[in-house]
């Protein structure tokens, strides 16, 4: 008999973060309409993976380096940089859109985390990052 197949989970979102203007380095606070409050990292549910499809960044009056970091246990973090992007002052970078996505996971115990960090010579609150992330069931 015909039975309905449950689809594989896939949640595609864009998160937005901006430097805070008071620190030279830090983790971006990431916001999305479905996040009740912003978070500085995202835990990937058990058995699922994440694809980072694109990252768009703008720098303000200061040069800024953004980095994508992962950690196998976000509850006791030791972050590893997977990719970083250097932006000269007042510049714009659009990364990864036409290339294969960055894949993170699968999450072995639900504690795998991803975060975006920034680093600036002089702090400003003008450097923005938008990332399109898919959390999916492989």
């Amino acid at each position: 008999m015909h039975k309905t197949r449950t689809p594989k989970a896939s949640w595609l979102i864009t998160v937005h973060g901006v430097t805070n203007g008071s620190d030279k380095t830090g983790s971006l606070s990431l916001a999305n309409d479905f996040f009740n409050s912003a978070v500085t990292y995202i835990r990937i549910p058990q058995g699922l993976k994440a694809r980072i499809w694109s990252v768009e960044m703008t720098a303000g009056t200061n040069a800024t380096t953004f980095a994508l970091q992962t950690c196998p246990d976000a509850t006791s973090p030791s972050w590893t940089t997977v990719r970083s992007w250097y932006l000269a002052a007042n510049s714009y970078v659009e990364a990864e859109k036409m290339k294969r996505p960055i894949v993170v996971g699968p999450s072995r115990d639900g504690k795998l985390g991803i975060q975006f960090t920034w680093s600036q010579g002089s702090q400003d609150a003008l450097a923005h990052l938008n990332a399109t992330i898919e959390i999916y069931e492989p």
Partner: protein
Amino acid sequence: MLNLDRVVDEKGLVNIGFPIVLYFPFNNTIVPLKVKRRLNYGYETFEYGHFPYTPVSPAVAGVIPTLNYSTETVFSYSRLDTTTQPDMFYHADKDTVFHAYMYVTPEILRIFTRIPKGTTPQEFRGVIPSNDLATSIEFGFSRGMAELAYAPKIRYGIVLANETNIDLQTYIKFVYAQYETDFIDDAQTILNIIKDRVPAHMTPLGGTVEQANFGDMLDLLGAKAIPYIPSYTPDSQALQQIQEALR
């Protein structure tokens, strides 16, 4: 080659004239029904809104808190009259089945269905899913979508669980059909359905727990529970069992 896909349309809803088979694991019976009419044909979308649950913290309607799960929830709808308002698909209508697909955003949330409400229908070798493990290593859930077949007097409860570190807002969409059904009372047709000789859509309701109001449901559907005979059973023997159940 039997084309099983034509039994449902592109939304997964059973086409007019085809059977929907309700399967009850607790007594290993089926109720085969023919879809006579689809009353909302072409208008199947129901944009519901957030999941009707408000946690203690954060006390925001529709949010599933980080590393937490909702209580067992039914879908209220304030525009309905007071009797149907608390659980909009629950009904006691004759020859009626609401066949719904519930789509949950974010798709990464775990969906646990409870049929009937208050029980844990899924099981793995005698073990039932635990609420305490809803965000841990666990089984018996789907993500993104759940199929719900609201036969008369059958109440579903839904639990959503959030494994992430984010307090997640939710959004629920239903794609549903209101069927007018006819019990299939011809033993040979039922045999053909069980043996996969005619296309039919099957949906399981519940697990090893007896459905509340199971008898009332049968009365309202004008139906009888037919044993779900193993497909290796010889035709003559199977036919005899079906005929006995129909008497």
